[in-house]
Structure formats: structure tokens, C-alpha cells
């Protein structure tokens, strides 16, 4: 057991997979010599050399295209897109090519690749470097989507993503990079599509993801203390595949479900989760299904504004307390 930051867990997870499988390679802007702008790839060039760890030009289409072409011909590339906002410049490659090609080809080829990116807010980077785009990728058939919330999950889910035979979008909550957590020694693996109950509870369930998980947990503590509400916190960990069973199970046990989404409101993953509950969990509902999200605006840059825009512990707890009143 060691204490590791979420940031260092990325490098450790990558190293674990690079050691295990010669076919794993890493490309991206400033990932090699510089060790990544978030230092999430520090040390990899030294250990694995320039054949496997490569700096690219500022060419996101080329990065994603290269990963795709390499994946269909025998490699297992990991491509870093520095900020997930930049998915915009490579969106055709992600949403139309990587996502659809296996299906269109009737399964003739596989695309075992991972696209990693720093995702979401909290660093006062402004609207073009802070957006949570988890729902952008979730909306695209053919992409798997993973968002770890702890250092241990970073390693385990990254391993699962690299070993997965399909394209996986691996979103690193950049607000969590400095956060430390317990990480066991030795190889860590995990499975995609399994949610984890971070806190058991009986009165309601808060479904959260990535940066929102620690906030949901803190809100649950506050609800227990101040309102006598015993909230369960379910960390989805992956959006595709989605652990619908865990969601419906928690709803059935508690009767009330809340989602906490970092993304702007419209068409967020929480809407999908809620729509599943409103159909399949209808008979379990003891009250409204409520979504707590960033307002439907780009993220403002000023610290005070950003803090107020993202779901905060207080907003989560207050919304739930009011709704359960």
C-alpha cells in the first residue's frame, strides 16, 4: 500500500500496461520529453524509449487518426488529448471514424485503443479548458467511457481500458490530479461497467462521477449530520458500459435518486440515468428524480464564478435536503 496522487497514478497505470504488453504505445503533445503538461506521463520516455512514447505535432486529428490506424493493424495505442475540450478538433475522428468503423465493417476489424484526456473544471482555466465532456462521448455509439474518481481506480480502470478490445475514452478529472489515495502494491486491474458504492445509505442514492464523487460523499456526510438523511453514494466509474443494475438496485432500496453532474445541464449523463429510472424503476420512485448539474452555460474563468457554477457540496446537500423534506 502506498499513498499516490491521482496524477501519479496515471503514470503508474500507463507504465504497468507498457511493461505488460509490447504493443502498447503512447502518443500526444508533450507526452514524451516533457512528461506531459500535467506530468501524468513523467518518466515514461526514460523507461520505454522514443519508439513507444512519442511527441506529436499539435494535430489532434493526426493523433487520433494515427491511434486508430495503429489499433486496426496490431498495436494498442494510448493517445493523449491534452484537454478533453480539444476533442472538438478531433471530433470527426472520435465520433465518426473510431466509433463507427468496426460496426460499418461488419466487425472485420477491432480498435483496441484508449484516448486519455484531462477533463473538467476546477482549475480556473476558463471555458475552453474546463468543460466536462463526458456526455459528448457517451452520446456516441461505439465509444466506451470511463471516468475514475480515485488513484486506485485510475490504475485499475486504465488497465481495463488498455486491455479492452474496443475504443475507450478515459477521462481524467483534472481537479483530482493532486488528490492522494491508497493504492495497493503490485498489478492493479479492474473491470469496465461496474459502479461502486462509496457510501452505503438507506434514504436516497446520489449517483456521481469523477470530480463529483468526493463532493457527493461530503454532501452525504453533511446530510447525515444536519438533516438526518442517510444517503448512498454510487460512483458510476464508467458511463459506457453503464452499470444500470447497480443504479436500479440503489433506487429500489432507497426510493429516491439524485444525480450530480459536472457537465452543463442539457443531455448530461444524468438525464440518461434518470430516463432509465423513470421507465424501469418507476414503481420504486418515492419522489421526483432530481439532477444537480452545472448550469447550462460555458464555465466562467474567475475562481468565484467557477466555484459557484460547479455543483458544490452545499448545493448538492441543500438540493437533496429540500427535495426530501
Amino acid at each position: 500500500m502506498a499513498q499516490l496522487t491521482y496524477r501519479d497514478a496515471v503514470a503508474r497505470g500507463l507504465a504497468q500496461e507498457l511493461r505488460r504488453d509490447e504493443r502498447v504505445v503512447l502518443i500526444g503533445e508533450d507526452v514524451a520529453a516533457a512528461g506531459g503538461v500535467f506530468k501524468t506521463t513523467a518518466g515514461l520516455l526514460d523507461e520505454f524509449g522514443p519508439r513507444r512514447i512519442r511527441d506529436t505535432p499539435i494535430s489532434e486529428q493526426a493523433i487520433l487518426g494515427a491511434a486508430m490506424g495503429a489499433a486496426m493493424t496490431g498495436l494498442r495505442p494510448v493517445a493523449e488529448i491534452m484537454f478533453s475540450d480539444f476533442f472538438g478538433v478531433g471530433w470527426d475522428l472520435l465520433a465518426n471514424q473510431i466509433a463507427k468503423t468496426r460496426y460499418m465493417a461488419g466487425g472485420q476489424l477491432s480498435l483496441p485503443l484508449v484516448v486519455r484526456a484531462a477533463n473538467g473544471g476546477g482549475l480556473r482555466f476558463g471555458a475552453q479548458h474546463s468543460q466536462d465532456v463526458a456526455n459528448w462521448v457517451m452520446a456516441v455509439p461505439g465509444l466506451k467511457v470511463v471516468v475514475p474518481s480515485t488513484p486506485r481506480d485510475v490504475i485499475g480502470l486504465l488497465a481495463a481500458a488498455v486491455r479492452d478490445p474496443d475504443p475507450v475514452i478515459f477521462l481524467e478529472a483534472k481537479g483530482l490530479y493532486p488528490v492522494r489515495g491508497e493504492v495497493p502494491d503490485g498489478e492493479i486491474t479492474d473491470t469496465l461497467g461496474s459502479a461502486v458504492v462509496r457510501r452505503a445509505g438507506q434514504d436516497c442514492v446520489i449517483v456521481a462521477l469523477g470530480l463529483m464523487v468526493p463532493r457527493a460523499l461530503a454532501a452525504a456526510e453533511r446530510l447525515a449530520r444536519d438533516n438526518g438523511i442517510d444517503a448512498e453514494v454510487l460512483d458510476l466509474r464508467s458511463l459506457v458500459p453503464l452499470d444500470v443494475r447497480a443504479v436500479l438496485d440503489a433506487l429500489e432500496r432507497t426510493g429516491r435518486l439524485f444525480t450530480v453532474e459536472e457537465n452543463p445541464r442539457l443531455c448530461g449523463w444524468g438525464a440518461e440515468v434518470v430516463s432509465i429510472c423513470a421507465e424501469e424503476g418507476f414503481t420504486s420512485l418515492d419522489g421526483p428524480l432530481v439532477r444537480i448539474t452545472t448550469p447550462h452555460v460555458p464555465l466562467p474563468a474567475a475562481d468565484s464564478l467557477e466555484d459557484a457554477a460547479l455543483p458544490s457540496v452545499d448545493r448538492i446537500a441543500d438540493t437533496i435536503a429540500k427535495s426530501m423534506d
Partner: protein
Amino acid sequence: MDVELYRQMVRMRAMEKRAYDLFLRGLVKGTSHLSTGQEAVAAGFAAVMRPDDYTFATYRGHAHTLARGAPMAAILAELMGRGNGLMSGKGGSMHLTSTEHGMMGSYAIVGAHLPIAAGAAWSAQLRGTEQVAVCFFGDGTANIGAFHEALNLAAVWQLPVVYVCENNQYMEYTPIADVTAVERPAADRAAAYGLERIVVDGNDVEAVYETALTAFSKARTGGGPSLIEADTYRHGGHSRADPGTYRPQQEVEDWLARDPLPAYRAKLLAAGIDEETLAGIEDAAARETDEATKAAEDGPVPELALIERDLWADGGAAWRN
């Protein structure tokens, strides 16, 4: 070799004409983009490729797919949305793929496959296999961002990839000169990637073949990428819906006079190949096309279960438990 080039061109022509007939008969339901008139490019390049080389094509990829060895029946069946289509009807005419023949896909969004081809070449380079990737695209594609990114990456990483611009003078309906800052959309930009300027007569199958040979040897021996512009012309419209009437009559006639098939036929005859051999090739292609058509027409409607199949490598499409 020569006769082989002719045979391929004849097969392509026969298949594309048949595809057009099938469209007129209402059997090709979606769109389709024929390369009638551009056969020399597909034939010349395919002839220099190793079986394990990679081809990346556009929606105008029927001939390239055939040239790599995919069965004509499966191609026509795919155009007709049949279960015996190359991709069981799931892809359609714009996405012909046959990985067992090195045909790594036909891509329908302009420019996308240029970086993908770079990726396949990068993989070959890394795996040390001496495979080469070839990527065909149109003149109009030289104006999209992905072209620029792919060429730069290929040059910087010295990838074994050959980029072939089939300049058929038009994007869909707009003459390429109206929207391009240089005369030759690809060749005039080679220098921007430190590459040699290469232009070839894309209707002269032997010239194409020679050019391809040079580029492939260079790529295979670690010499890096090439960018080749092949001048050619599509005899028909952009896609099945287009009669191509925006093109000046004289221009069309001039290019029809340069049709690569009769030109090469005449050359072969002049070189002493006898008429029977050529007629035999033509007859065989006609028979192949008839048989392929029948097999395609007899093909079943795809099973509906295919809709939720093969999104993932496990064969399914589940997004939830």
C-alpha cells in the same frame, strides 16, 4: 504484367457499369460513387502492392476494393444491401472494407482517412514489417485540415505511406480550381511537407504503375512518405444522383478521348498482344460481372439481428448490463 493491368481495369469498368445499371433498376438503394474513367490509378497502384499492404480509400472506393482481391459479388451485394454483402449490408457502398485483402476501409467523410492511413503506416514501421499503406483521396480533399495534419505527421515520422490524390478536377459539382489557392491541390503543396512534387498522368496505367513502384520501394525501405497527384476524370457524375451536367461539353469529350481503357488496349495491341487475349479478358470480366450480379441479387435480406451486432469486439452492442 501489362495484360494484368488491363484485366483489372476491365473488371473495374464492368463492375462500375453494372453498379450503375443496378441503381437504375432500383436495386442500389443508397448513394454510390463510381470511378469510371479513373481505373488506371486503382489498377496501377494495386499492381505494386504486397498482399499485406494496406489500402485506405474514400466512398469512391469500389474499384480499389476490387483491385485488392475482394470478390465482386460481395461488393455488389453490399451496394444492394444484401446479407451476403462485404459487410453484410451494414456499411454500404461508401464503406467497402475487406481486411483480409488489405482493404482497410472506405471512408466517407472527406480527409478522415489520411491520418488513419498514417497510423497504419506507423504501426507497420514500429512492428518492422515493411508493409506500406496507400491512401487514395480526391482533389477536393487537399483543402481540408486533416490532409495537412496527416502529411506533416507522415513526413516528420518518415512513415511508409503513399498518399495518392486522384485529381478528377471536381469536388462534387464545383471545379477544384474555383476553391483552391494553387493550381495543383496536392502536388503544389508537397513542398509544405518537405516532399517531392510528383504529378502523373492518371489515365496512363503504366505511368501510374511506374510512379507507384518508386513510391512503394521508397516507403518499404524506410525512405518515408510520398504525395502523388494523378490527373484523371470521372466519366459520370459525382454520385448516382448527379448527371454531371455542370461540366463543359468539350471538357467531357476531351477526357473521354483519353479514356484509359481503349488507350491501353491500343497500346497492348501495338505491343503485340493479340486481340483474342484482350477479348478473352473482356468476356471473362463480363461473365464475372454477370455471375456476381446474380449472386448479389440472390443474396438474402440481412438478418435484423445484425443491427445490434459487432459494435464491440465481443460481437454485440450492449451499453448496459
